């Protein structure tokens, strides 16, 4: 088990090496980044084979960090964090593969990319709230530079908006944590100590603190109406960064909600549960409807991300073990599927056609030009709709069943969201890759200026793209066919005393 902390250190070292390697040549930096990301992923998988599921966090490292404040450098793991660690390894490896075409300042790109990944590993391993926060910030800062420097559409706006939302969210989190810490006797920042400290606050105090921490994290998880940074940020980001952004960074927010906010105060959670659930449900339906209307393919996927993250938040809000285990599964599933969708649209399609407008794409009939990309998008699309056999199905099903036992009305409205998701995904597949159908299809395809014979020549799909895409497809299929692989880790973790205080309904 003691392999896991090395995921942080190795990735940090990889970042420095990539920076140095970039001075030599772009290829060196790429290979260093790939070896780091893949090596770290294999490391998490190795650790996972030795993992013994159980309730509570299993300590890996625990030394004093700021003794005067009771802050500890405490790394620990349980089934929930292990799931997300494996996801991080997978998403970062795929992200490097899909960033293979970054030619400008390659060293700096991968240095920032790996720094972000190291921060994410750190967050998932932290068992001390202040340490958690520090890693959280390390993950946030590089995002800004990745988008501002290597992004596309409206990158400065998207990057700054994302940075300001992230920092506003994390400022709320920090304020809440410090409040609990300072008013609860200033003993320390471990999750248990914070829960004890929060219990000493008055009920209104607990409610305010919980709101600060929960909604601070929820900003990064894309909870409606705090989600508006997500579509613009995703669209502006370079492909590898938007894969990380959708794949793991949004999970940081959801993980923070689950790990830090929920156990903080059962009293305050009871107060906020219904509003949070309705916000999540609204987000699912609203973002789905927006995705149905969007003309820019990347915006469609950006909003679909918000919609799917709504399921995660709904699962957390339902607060019974089944819904929460589904939420964690959905975090994994969405990380993989959204990564694949962004990879296809950003790297395979946009870098070749230089357009993401559905109106332009429908005339190109991409299924004839880039069949591999089309196949991947269709697979990712149906996985995202929740077709059985892919990871989205067990995840959303578990969430909906869990939510139904908590409040049938939430589940009912969220089910409408599933239908909308099917609609916008099919629309994106149809318009983006197959062109328009119907009786007038013959005339529509041979529209003015675009003859069937003069289709633009698109460069073939390269091996890193194929490798990355197959990795992600493999992961979603494996988890879709055998979700118990992950649920066997997740469910025991939900039996920890801290979470049991919030979750009702016993074992799943």
């Amino acid at each position, binding site marked *: 088990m003691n392999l896991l902390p090395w995921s942080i250190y190795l990735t940090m070292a990889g970042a420095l090496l990539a920076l140095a390697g970039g001075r030599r040549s772009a290829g060196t930096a790429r290979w260093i980044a790939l070896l780091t990301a893949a090596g770290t992923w294999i490391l998490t998988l190795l650790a996972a084979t030795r993992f013994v599921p159980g309730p509570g966090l299993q300590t890996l490292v625990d030394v004093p960090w700021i003794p*005067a404040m009771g802050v500890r450098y405490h790394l620990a793991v349980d089934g929930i964090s292990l799931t997300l660690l494996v996801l991080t390894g997978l998403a970062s490896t795929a992200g490097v593969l899909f960033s293979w075409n970054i030619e400008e300042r390659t060293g700096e790109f991968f240095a920032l990319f790996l720094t972000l990944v190291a921060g994410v590993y750190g967050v998932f391993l932290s068992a001390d709230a202040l340490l958690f926060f520090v890693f959280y910030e390390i993950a946030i800062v590089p995002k800004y530079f990745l988008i501002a420097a290597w992004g596309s559409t409206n990158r400065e706006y998207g990057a700054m908006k994302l940075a300001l939302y992230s920092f506003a969210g994390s400022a709320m989190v920090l*304020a809440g944590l410090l409040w609990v810490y300072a008013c609860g006797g200033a003993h320390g920042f471990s999750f248990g100590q914070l829960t004890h400290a929060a219990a000493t606050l008055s009920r209104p105090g607990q409610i305010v603190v919980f709101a600060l921490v929960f909604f601070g994290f929820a900003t990064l998880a894309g909870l409606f109406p705090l989600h508006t940074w997500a579509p613009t940020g995703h669209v502006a980001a370079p492909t590898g960064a938007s894969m990380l952004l959708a794949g793991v960074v949004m999970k940081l927010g959801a993980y923070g909600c689950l790990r830090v906010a929920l156990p903080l105060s059962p009293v305050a959670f009871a107060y906020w549960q219904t509003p949070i659930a309705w916000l999540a449900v609204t987000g699912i339906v609203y973002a789905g409807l927006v995705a149905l209307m969007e003309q820019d393919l990347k915006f469609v996927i950006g909003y679909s991300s918000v919609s799917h993250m709504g399921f995660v938040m709904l699962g957390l809000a339902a607060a019974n073990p089944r819904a929460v285990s589904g939420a964690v599964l959905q975090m994994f599933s969405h990380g993989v599927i959204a990564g694949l969708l962004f990879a296809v649209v950003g790297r395979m399609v946009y870098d070749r056609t230089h357009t993401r407008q559905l109106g332009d794409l429908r005339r190109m009939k991409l299924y004839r030009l880039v069949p591999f990309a089309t196949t991947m998008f269709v697979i990712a699309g149906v996985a995202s709709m929740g077709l059985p056999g892919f990871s989205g199905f067990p995840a959303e099903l578990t969430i909906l069943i869990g939510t139904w036992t908590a409040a049938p009305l939430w589940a009912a409205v969220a089910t409408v969201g599933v239908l909308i998701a099917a609609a916008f995904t099919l629309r994106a597949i149809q318009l983006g890759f197959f062109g328009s159908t119907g009786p007038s299809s013959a005339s529509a395809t041979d529209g003015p200026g675009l003859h069937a014979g003069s289709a633009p020549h698109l460069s073939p799909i390269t091996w890193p793209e194929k490798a990355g895409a197959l990795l992600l497809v493999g992961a979603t299929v494996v988890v879709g066919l055998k979700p118990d692989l992950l649920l066997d880790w997740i469910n025991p973790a939900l039996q920890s005393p801290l979470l049991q205080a919030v979750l009702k309904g016993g074992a799943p």
Partner: protein
Amino acid sequence: MPIQLLQQAAAANEWLAITPELMLALLALLLLVLELVLPRQLHTLIPATAIVAQIVIALGLAFNFDSAFTGPGTAFNGLLRLTADGQFLRLFFLVCSIFVCLLGTVCLAKQRMPRVEFYHLVLIITAAMMLLAQSNHFVLFFVALETVTVGFYILVSYFRESPLSLEAGLKYLVMGALSSSILLFGIVLLYGAAGNQALPGGSPNSMNFDQLRIFLTDNPGNFLASAGIVLVLAGVAFKIGAVPFQIWIPDVYQGAPTPVTAFLAVASKAAGFAVLLILTQRVFAPYQGLVIPVLSVMAAATILFGNLAALTQHNVKRLIGLSGVSHAGYLMIGVIAAYHEPHAIGAIWFYLSAYLLASFAVFGVMAHVAGPNDADQELDHYADLARDQPFLAAVLAIGLGSLAGIPPLAGFMGKLLIFVSAFKAGLYPLLAVAIAGVVISIYYYFGWIKAAFFPAWRPTDAGLPQAAVPARTPVNLGVRIALTVLAVTSVLLGFYQGAFGQWILTR
């Protein structure tokens, strides 16, 4: 002071108490002598002498940190009070002075100016600040403060061929004189009120802080004393640049030579806070009911004004000046929190240390990016700095990140300690303002880092000629070492505070 008292002081070895200050003053004189004596080609040795000698003094002070005083004793008949905080501040000002001299070597090389007087004045000001931080009597307080201010009048307008430097000097003179007179008027009112022996606690020696405190304790709500306190606080607020006394900051910071701007931004601000802490926590403590609301309103306004005004700046000297205003606001929250939470004072020292490291890192980069026209330092001049001089760009990123409070840099720890103290003191509205301010500040700090790391994005073909970017100065070895130390310490102090952190939190 009559001659017998001086003899007494000598007999009791009291002069030992101000050894570092005396050594600095002697060093300042020595520099002038060296200029006369040394042949012209050896004049480059003078700044080196100043820097090395100061490092020696700083080391001596650090090794004698505890032995130079025994408990909170006073010297010179109550003029000076020797405290651990005072020792810390002496070291702080010495370190500032070393870096200012180092930056001076970089900036003065680009100007046709007499050199030695610059270092002379920096040393004198540093000695005066060290006395100021230990003063226990309004006479010493005012004399030391005026020495600092008068020295700065000259330093601010040191580039006398630059109209902006002269303008800045004039503005600083006018505003400084105004603030000094307000301060003096406040002192006079306090002296007059506390000198009235018909009132309980009245004393003929009412300029002494201890006597004054006794008087204030015995006379709560004395109108004359209240007016005096408000005026004294206003005078100090000028020095730290707190709203509404911040108006001089942008122009003076822009016009002053970059090392002087750094000196003003770090040392002068720290001196202001040292004085503010002595006054509010010790002397005016009985008048908390008056002081806390005044400081709270000023702190909130300072944070908001500093951050909002900095958003639109393109000149980096004005930007860092206004961002410094907001830092003064965060520190004022610490001062207010110190009434309820003694750890807050340690938090202020930590914050100031982190601010010193980060600011000098940034100013060090500014000194190299600036051309011969020192007042003209635009954000656009930083375009592509990362490609030309990656070392400077890295130092800049760490410095600005620390100023912005990005974990795990030292600046984050500083803010964390201040905020924890403020939470313990229950200052929720002020904290909300401060946290909003921190988020706003991300915009301009990141904008600056972005400017340094990426090419300028403004359209070059819009018919407007691209502004010429001044040539960047290469970094010499000494400055490279210093900047590396600043950047590395900024990172390390965030991760690990060690003995320093222990001292800060348990002092």
